């Protein structure tokens, strides 16, 4: 006796969250059954392995049919074939677009191209995430990217509107799209200690302040591309380190203000010129696409690592960066106050986030 055909169709589509997770994680039916058996479900329900097999197959088939709709979530809402309560629809979409931290760190900032897709086997081996799941996550990134590129308006809003994601997840996707578009290097060994959250945080700040959208909300890709004019202007900041008087004045202003407040005052005083040069040079280099990509490598090399080697506490870093930014306003010879604020405001936020072990 063999089962030729075995199906269950409910008027309301049954969604088993546990099986959905197994499916999303890319397990085959037999692996999923084995995992479910291990979870002790047979003992809890008194079911047999055959029942579990049939149930798993059914759910997998349903998910397979739903997958086509999940590629364009608004379709899932309007389609008539599966009757699914709105809360469940939201869950299906949210989980489908959720991604693994380990995976996203591997592809963040990479071009979402066929080439990268070929590397997914390696990523799968490295992260222990099934190839199937890697493909789904990669395709999700790519799909979102394709839909929202060349679109007008806020990136997060666009993603939310076209993929019906939660605010949190839409922001994450905005970061992924932003990184993929600007190809920021995140894979260097030096950057391994950073989490996706760190990068997403920086991406959000950069989108808010450094993109076209920060000045004009009526252009295509306003949140994806950095404001070229702004990057050009950043060269003007060079004067802060090139002009020796200005540099000394800046240093004395900061040192006066922070004397007695900083645990690492002497180290700061000794390193001030190096640090300032680092930060300003990063700005000045951003005209070249290549250097834009290395932004995070540079920040870590030029600022984070020197501070960390001197064991600056986070609070001291904050006090220093605040004072360092603010003191520029008292430099009479410096004319690019607004530019400085736009640059430093974002950079300060990023650095503080990136400064950890």
């Amino acid at each position, binding site marked *: *006796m*063999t*089962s*030729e*055909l*075995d*199906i*269950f*169709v*409910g*008027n*309301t*589509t*049954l969604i088993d969250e546990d099986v959905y997770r197994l499916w999303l994680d890319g397990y085959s039916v037999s692996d999923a059954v084995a995992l479910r058996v291990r979870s002790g479900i047979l003992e809890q*329900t*008194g*079911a*047999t392995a*055959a*029942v*579990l097999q*049939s*149930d798993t*197959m*059914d759910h997998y*088939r*349903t998910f*397979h*049919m739903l997958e086509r709709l999940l590629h364009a979530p608004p*379709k899932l809402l*309007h*389609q*008539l*074939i*599966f*009757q699914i*309560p709105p809360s469940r629809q939201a869950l299906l979409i949210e989980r489908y677009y959720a991604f693994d931290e380990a995976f996203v760190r591997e592809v963040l900032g990479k071009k979402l191209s066929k080439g990268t897709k070929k590397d997914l086997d390696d990523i799968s081996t490295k992260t222990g995430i099934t190839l199937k799941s890697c493909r789904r996550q990669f395709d999700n990134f790519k799909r979102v990217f394709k839909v929202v590129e060349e679109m007008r308006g806020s990136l997060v809003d666009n993603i939310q509107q076209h993929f019906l994601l939660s605010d949190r997840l839409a922001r994450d996707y905005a970061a992924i799209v932003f990184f993929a578009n600007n190809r920021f290097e995140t894979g260097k060994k030096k950057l391994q200690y950073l989490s996706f959250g760190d990068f997403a945080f920086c991406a959000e700040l950069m989108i808010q302040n450094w993109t076209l959208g920060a000045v004009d909300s009526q252009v295509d890709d306003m949140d994806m591309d950095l404001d070229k004019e702004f990057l050009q202007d950043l060269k003007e900041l060079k004067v802060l380190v090139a002009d020796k008087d200005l540099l000394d004045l800046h240093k004395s202003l900061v040192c006066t203000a922070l004397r007695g407040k900083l645990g690492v005052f002497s180290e700061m005083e000794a390193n001030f010129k190096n640090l300032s040069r680092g930060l300003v040079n990063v700005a000045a280099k951003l005209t070249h696409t290549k250097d834009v990509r290395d932004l995070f490598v540079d920040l870590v090399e030029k600022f984070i690592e020197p501070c960390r080697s001197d064991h600056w506490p986070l609070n001291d870093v904050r006090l220093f960066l605040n004072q360092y930014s603010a003191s520029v306003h008292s430099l009479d010879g410096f004319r690019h106050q607004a530019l400085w604020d736009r640059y430093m405001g974002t950079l300060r936020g990023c650095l503080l986030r990136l400064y950890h072990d």
Partner: protein
Amino acid sequence: MPGKLKVKIVAGRHLPVMDRASDLTDAFVEVKFGNTTFKTDVCLKSLNPQWNSEWFKFEVDDEDLQDEPLQITVLDHDTYSANDAIGKVYIDIDPLLYSEAATVISGWFPIYDTIHGIRGEINVVVKVDLFNDLNRFRQSSCGVKFFCTTSIPKCYRAVIIHGFVEELVVNEDPEYQWIDRIRTPRASNEARQRLISLMSGELQRKIGLKVLEMRGNAVVGYLQCFDLEGESGLVVRAIGTACTLDKLSSPAAFLPACNSPSKEMKEIPFNEDPNPNTHSSGPSTPLKNQTYSFSPSKSYSRQSSSSDTDLSLTPKTGMGSGSAGKEGGPFKALLRQQTQSALEQREFPFFTLTAFPPGFLVHVGGVVSARSVKLLDRIHNPDEPETRDAWWAEIRQEIKSHAKALGCHAVVGYSESTSICEEVCILSASGTAAVLNPRFLQDGTVEGCLEQRLEENLPAGCGFCHIPYDELNMPFPAHLTHCYNCRKQKVPDVLFTTIDLPVDATVIGKGCLIQARLCRLKKKAQAEANATAISNLLPFMEYEVHTQLMNKLKLKGMNALFGLRIQISVGENMLMGLASATGVYLAALPTPGGIQIAGKTPNDGSYEQHISHMQKKINDTIAKNKELYEINPPEMSEEIIGSPIPEPRQRSRLLRSQSESSDEVAELDLSHGKKDAFVLEIDDTDAMEDVHSLLTDVPPPSGFYSCNTEIMPGINNWTSEIQMFTSVRVIRLSSLNLTNQALNKNFNDLCENLLKSLYFKLRSMIPCCLCHVNFTVSLPEDELIQVTVTAVAITFDKNQALQTAKTHAEKSLQRASTDNEELLQFPLELCSDSLPSHPFPPAKGWSKHLESASSNSGIPAAQRAVTVEKASPVGEGNFRNRSSPPCANSTVGVVKMTPLSFIPGAKITKYLGIINMFFIRETTSLREEGGVSGFLHAFIAEVFAMVRAHVAALGGNAVVSYIMKQCVFMENPNKNQAQCLINVSGDAVVFVRESELEVVSTQQPTANCQPACAGGEVTT
């Protein structure tokens, strides 16, 4: 020109890409009705076209309006080659033809293609203007309402229940026409879909005409089926119960209405033959012999000569049965005569209803069934489907005679079915013999003192169990005792019925699903030899199915079966029998004895030990089941019940006591000899197997109950969470071990595993009950068995379940005293709907409603009068009805589907019309669509979607009495092909949640009843 059909094509969405080059589609729409076709403009390069067409107007006869479906075809425009069809939508416009149903059909319909499935959606608006007085047109029957529900629909009252209507139409199956060799599968499928749609329209119209002839206005329990006879043609047949219904919500319209039926009543030509197509009339034996005499040539009727002699005795029994009653004897006799006279003039006193207005069902005799094996031949003249009509007439006659043998003049819970394999066809009919109260059959409005007094005399909760036949002249041997409830009348020891459990029946504990499963191998044979072989096997199968049912019932410690449905399916090399029913413990019937097993060789010690071990296991199982189903009847000593009836008891020693009393059993008694029903004799390994299989049935996991009736006895607090589902399994038998035993085991495992899977899948709904579990078995190919299950899972509140029915009733009464009229009726109705053990003492239903309604002093006199007349078990206030639409609108989107006639926690406010849909799906890329499972899974999901879309377009939010009547699946994996035909039906309704009702009632309380409204606000 009595009707103008208007159609507007608004827009499309999610269309498939038809032009690979542009990834877009140039779509336009053809709207066809009858022979007229309109086209929209082409909407270039869009997957979401906005046509916003003008109104396409069709001027048509109302006959066509009833027969023809509206056909909408979406196409992709192609300048150089032929336009490609994207898909079609068939819209049945019947619901627009009667005033109380839908007024407009408007919404998104899935665009369906028989090869590709659903391909996008189209938004359509359809309206109908009817011009003339419809009654003048006899060819059409516009205005007759159809309900699939097998009880009086919730917002109606039955004025008269006229009786049985049937009709069948035949045609050539397009799939088998010569042209099919040269046309595409798509064209062939569409021709078939269209033809069946046309035929069901025609059938419905013809049935409607018969109803009008009977002066009815509705068909309840409408069941339409297709027989795919292959080469010999396509038969569409339908049965139903003609009624005159009154809408409960319009008191103004009610008063004149209540006069007219009584006037009409006198004019009603009861003797008028409701079935002009059939030549037979009246239950005369000569006719029977006549049919029998010509049958050997072509038809293999299963009836044996012994049954014929049995039947010839029956009129005597029927007439003499009036003496059975002691209490209220004269009234009863009078009633009997009345009923008889009303019923005897009908050709077939059959009712497809399974639940009845209170007081309608007086006594139940038992299950009657008949089967006959026929050889199919080509239908030569589709306009004269005489052969098929004659076949059914023959079977119905047999049923009628059996009912008479049981002292009953009516058959309720009646249904018909067929099973076809190649050119052999088994026709089956079954029902429950019953004695009915004539009131509803003639005139529902006259409530003379006679009826009133009768009703008071009828014992509550047990009346229907009392035997309708004469105990001295019993049609079959039965073990009678005095009723355990009223202790006055006689009752049988077990009762088998095809109806739902009457709401007033007193039940102890909970019920459960009981199934008997059986396979029999049969030699492959051709034509007549094959038919003979099947005919010979049938009696043994029926006998074994009954024995299995009886044993399983005893094992559960129960004494009655409801909703019994025995299905015998025929295949190439085997027959399958599957009986499903809901077992209960009726308080009126005696406690069932245990099961005793006896060995043949009592001297063998080890054997003896084995037997006693088995016996112990059986006893343990019975005890466990009693606990599980909470069966603890009050202890009652024999003396209290009254002296046992000595004579029948003695007889029962000699004869098998089998009170389900269908004819087969009566026939088979001889062969069964002198065994006691409760003794299982183990004389060979087969018998051993049987006992083992009895014990292998596993009870559902805790928290689960199941039944195949509408409501589960003993559970009354349903929550609103329901899940309807269809599950299909096909197994392939390995041809090596094909013995009866192995087959039985395979089949048993298949059903048990299927149930286990259902319990597992629905575990999140615990505590929950699977209601209306409907199994169908078919044998699509040599070694394939297909089982299809449709049921609904309903969650219930465990805590409230502990409350007794009594407190529930008290609560509702308390509320009633403070509530206004509408709110009063509501809890009452709840009780009668969902409480199997009715809270009220004896005379309930009708008269009780009157009492409680009139005792409410808050109601003004005039209004009370209306209430009194309107009060019925499904009483409903007009107030709620009027305010329902805004509520209904808020829930549009989700469409509930259920095989039940009600929706728990909600009130049905409007019936929008019948849904009857037929779909074919075919694929030539089976593997690519996920194999057979993927293919069928997608198709069933699509069918659900199309049903929901049609209901939503009618303005409804649920389908009740939903049934999947056919699911024919054929595959050819070698060719990578599969085809499936599905036929579903149900009633589209609008329901309103109870919680919403109460909100509404506080919002506009003064609209309808000024003085009593204050109370309503207090309670909500």
